[in-house]
């Protein structure tokens, strides 16, 4: 009988049943998709890193190395499981052409290497270790889509031509956020290419499972081993790998949470409407002795069935959508080790969503218990009178809330998108607020070349401002007496500042700013002191600022002054040009001038850097933002149509009466539109405000997980104040008009039958 009851009830209230199912399905779908994508991303990255055997500790080094000292260190250090030194031949980007596309504008450090012997393997598209033959080359997989490459096409390196044999996955440098890219060639070809670039070393260690990577890093620094380059650890590699796709998934998660809130609100409202309509039936059931629990169960079972259907629909949609959305992820990292894990995670996500919805339904159904049999049978409202009286205003409140949440859902990804796309975003990632950046790295006489470049820049009239930042490897002594290695960037950090999560840029002689990662690792905070040693000189510093940084391994520091003159690891210049200067021609000219002076400098337009480094992330967030706009518009449309229809059904008598006394359908529609006006305006304003203020906090939390702290939105006002409200107004207006169509079916004589 219960089956018939549920089925007949659904048939009798098709609109409510379909809407409820729709909300449950959409909420289930979004959460299932989020969990599926998360599980797959983590699974894919882990599978790739396991198969490639990513090193736990990696020291990049330019210059000579003593293999013997490294071997001895590795043998004596109990934390070391495996050790190897790989060579990486850094090439001029202008020397590389991929099937006719020159990499001269690439901001990546591109180079060639041979397959590793022990670990840190480069893998093919099946995640198998690549064996490359002479004359063949494997290209980083991220370039396949970017340059539309296919196997069998030609890669030109200087005068040498190579046949693309396939595309490689590099567990360390797969992400566009990693600044280097490795091409794989045979040993013979590598030897032949050696003269075309500068060789640097990747000193890699696999550590015991129990080993502390940070402790190991200190031991390595203490041993005085080669360290002319950044240190990268496995957690940072994992973070870089998960960053671009992870951000998109986090946006989907945010959208899911908002959708769940909307679903809860709407389902609660439809349920209350139904309970109101069924109060006499409920009273009768109570009167004949059916217990509160049993009556609640009758209603609850219907929602249980709908949530089951919703979960299945959501799960199926998630499995279908995952294929398209995760295509890039799969290309980059390969399939997740176990697809079942993803499906189980998706199932768990859908089940959790439906569980939350069912809990909220159960809570709403408890209100029914307050209704006494006598009140219902005697036609009295009792405690319900208040509720009934308030239902229309409650309904408008829900519509305003849904519009507000919809706008919030549209605004948040849009703001994230405009922020990440903006030039200033790099300042959250440890890069100065300049137009152009020049890097001198992995070359001899960095100090001398830095001076030369400085001279070129100060002598150029087109340069508005420029600053030179020199990075030196130092040792830091903590209050507890321990010592650790630290890369300190020295210079005037106020000219092109990064964004500081706390405090300000170092200005005084004894001030130092630390990256968040560094401050966390050293257990230091603003105002704390530390001792810095460069060569034999020691100086006491106070921490004046903390900033986020994902460059150079993420563990960096900035100071205005350093004691002593330690060997420079690298130098960075930030430049801004005077108005009217043609940036592209200046870039080309600068690169040529420096190249003619035999100074190997990487000159980067920061706008291009953003596009290159965050391009994929921006594309994915743009997709997520687009999906969010569509989903929000759809939800707003459905909710407003539903609520308008319910409103018209409730007001049927009044509408009929108005018609009887001479109002036209158009007059009545105008009345409703007028009533909706403040609701829509309130919803839009609330949505925009919350999307910008609360959204900033939420996005800040997300980006903090990804390394960017002290986050503020860089708002695209045209999108947020015009486009999004415009979409919302058109959607809601269409929905109201559709919902009001029922008015034409209400006859003037209906009111003569009295209120039902």
């Amino acid at each position, binding site marked *: 009988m219960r089956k*018939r009851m549920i089925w007949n009830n659904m048939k009798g209230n098709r609109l409510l049943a379909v809407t409820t199912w729709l909300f449950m399905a959409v909420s289930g779908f979004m959460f299932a998709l989020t969990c599926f994508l998360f599980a797959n991303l983590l699974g894919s990255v882990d599978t790739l890193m396991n198969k490639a055997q990513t090193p736990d500790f990696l020291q990049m080094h330019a210059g000579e190395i003593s293999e013997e000292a490294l071997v001895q260190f590795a043998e004596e250090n109990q934390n070391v499981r495996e050790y190897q030194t790989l060579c990486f031949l850094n090439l001029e980007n202008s020397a590389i052409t991929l099937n006719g596309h020159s990499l001269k504008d690439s901001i990546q450090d591109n180079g060639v290497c041979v397959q590793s012997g022990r670990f840190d393997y480069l893998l093919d598209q099946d995640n198998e270790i690549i064996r490359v033959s002479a004359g063949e080359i494997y290209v980083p997989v991220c370039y396949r889509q970017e340059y539309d490459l296919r196997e069998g096409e030609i890669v030109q390196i200087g005068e040498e031509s190579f046949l693309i044999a396939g595309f490689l996955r590099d567990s360390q440098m797969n992400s566009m956020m990693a600044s280097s890219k490795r091409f794989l060639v045979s040993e013979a070809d590598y030897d032949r290419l050696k003269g075309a670039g500068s060789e640097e070393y990747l000193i890699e260690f696999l550590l015991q499972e129990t080993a502390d990577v940070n402790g190991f890093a200190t031991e390595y620094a203490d041993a005085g081993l080669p360290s002319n380059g950044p240190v990268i650890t496995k957690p940072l590699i994992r973070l870089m790998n998960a960053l671009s796709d992870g951000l998109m998934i986090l946006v989907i998660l945010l959208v899911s949470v908002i959708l769940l809130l909307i679903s809860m609100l709407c389902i609660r409202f439809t349920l209350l409407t139904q309970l109101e309509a069924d109060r006499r*039936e409920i009273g009768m059931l109570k009167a*004949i*002795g059916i217990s509160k629990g049993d009556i609640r169960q009758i209603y609850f079972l219907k929602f249980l069935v709908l949530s089951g259907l919703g979960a299945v629909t959501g799960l199926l949609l998630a499995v279908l959508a995952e294929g398209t959305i995760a295509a890039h992820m799969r290309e980059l990292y390969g399939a997740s080790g176990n697809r079942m894990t993803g499906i189980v995670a998706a199932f768990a996500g859908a089940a959790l969503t439906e569980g939350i919805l069912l809990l909220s339904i159960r809570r709403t159904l408890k209100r029914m218990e307050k209704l006494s049999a006598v009140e219902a*049978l005697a036609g009295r409202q009792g405690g319900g009178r208040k509720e009934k009286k308030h239902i229309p205003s409650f309904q408008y409140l829900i519509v305003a809330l849904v519009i507000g949440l919809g706008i919030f859902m549209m605004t948040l990804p849009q703001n994230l998108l405009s922020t990440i796309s903006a030039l200033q975003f790099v300042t959250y990632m440890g890069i100065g607020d300049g137009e152009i950046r020049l890097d001198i790295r992995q070359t001899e006489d960095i100090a001398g070349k830095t001076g030369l470049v400085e001279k070129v820049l100060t002598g150029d009239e087109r340069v508005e401002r420029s600053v030179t930042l020199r990075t030196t490897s130092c040792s830091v002594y903590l209050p507890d007496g321990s010592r650790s290695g630290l890369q300190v960037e020295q210079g005037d950090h106020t000219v092109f500042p990064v964004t500081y999560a706390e405090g300000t840029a170092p200005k005084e002689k004894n001030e130092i700013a630390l990256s968040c990662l560094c401050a966390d690792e050293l257990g230091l905070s603003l105002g704390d002191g530390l001792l810095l040693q460069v060569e034999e000189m020691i100086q006491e510093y106070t921490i004046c600022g903390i900033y986020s940084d994902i460059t150079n391994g993420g563990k960096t520091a900035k100071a205005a002054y350093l004691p002593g003159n330690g060997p420079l690891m690298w130098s960075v210049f930030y430049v801004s040009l005077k108005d009217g200067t043609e940036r592209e021609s200046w870039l080309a000219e600068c690169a040529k001038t420096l190249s003619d002076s035999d100074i190997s400098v990487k000159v980067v337009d920061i706008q291009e850097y953003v596009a290159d480094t965050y391009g994929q992330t921006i594309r994915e967030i743009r997709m997520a933002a687009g999906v969010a706009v569509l989903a929000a518009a759809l939800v707003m449309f459905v909710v407003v149509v539903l609520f308008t229809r319910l409103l018209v059904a409730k007001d049927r008598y009044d509408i009929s009466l108005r018609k009887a006394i001479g109002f036209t359908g158009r007059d009545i529609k105008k009345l409703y539109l007028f009533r909706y006006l403040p609701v829509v305006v309130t919803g839009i304003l609330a949505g925009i405000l919350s999307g910008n203020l609360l959204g900033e906090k939420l996005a800040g939390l997300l980006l903090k997980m990804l390394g960017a702290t002290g986050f503020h939105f860089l708002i695209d006002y045209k999108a947020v104040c015009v486009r999004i409200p415009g979409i919302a107004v058109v959607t809601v207006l269409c929905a109201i008009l559709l919902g009001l169509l029922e008015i034409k079916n209400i006859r003037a004589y209906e009111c003569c039958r009295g209120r039902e």
Partner: protein
Amino acid sequence: MSEILIVKNLCKDGILKDIGFNVNDGEMVAVMGPSGSGKSTLLYQVSGMDRADSGEVWVSGTEICSLSEDERAGLRLERMGFVFQQMNMLKSLNLIDNIMLPACRLKKGKSFGKEVEHWARILMRKMGIEELAQRKITEVSGGQLQRACICRSMMNQPKILFADEPTGALNQGAAQEVMEEFTRLNQEGTTILMVTHDSKVAASCSRILYLLDGSIKGELSLVGLPEGKDREERVNRWLAGMGW
């Protein structure tokens, strides 16, 4: 004859004032009185749908005023049947499912469905509505629906059946048919307490209680009086004497 319903000093919201009466097993008692006299309120209190402010109500040996809401619901389901003026039935169920509804809570087990349906059909046959079993509630007449309500009230073979204006929403013919069913049920041994405005309906009962301003102002026993016009006239005269 044992007393199936005992009401002592019942008070409720100033509507019922110190009411006391008994109903014996097998009796059919009508409660009459002008609008606002407290008839329906009395019915709600004695059937446990509502809790009295003070006083006692004993239904087949159980004092119900001290029971919790759920306990009273259980007692209503097991020992009482209800017929209302508005034939409240669930729109989502057909006629026979509505009739079977009270039994679903009580009888569970493998043979439950068949047993209950069999019993529901027997009741429907007795009421002459068996052929309407699968109809929706919107597809039958008011009289048929009220007879279905009587079937539903009898599903758990209650000790006492409460009826609140059972013919109030019916035309004369349908009302007559429904009353015949009540009389038959009473003759078969079902105790009935009925609130009514209709003197003709009251005349078919064995006793009439007259309620005015929340107190019982009079009581008329019709036991031994023959059926027919004389009985109705006797009731009308008595009611006129009460100020009806």
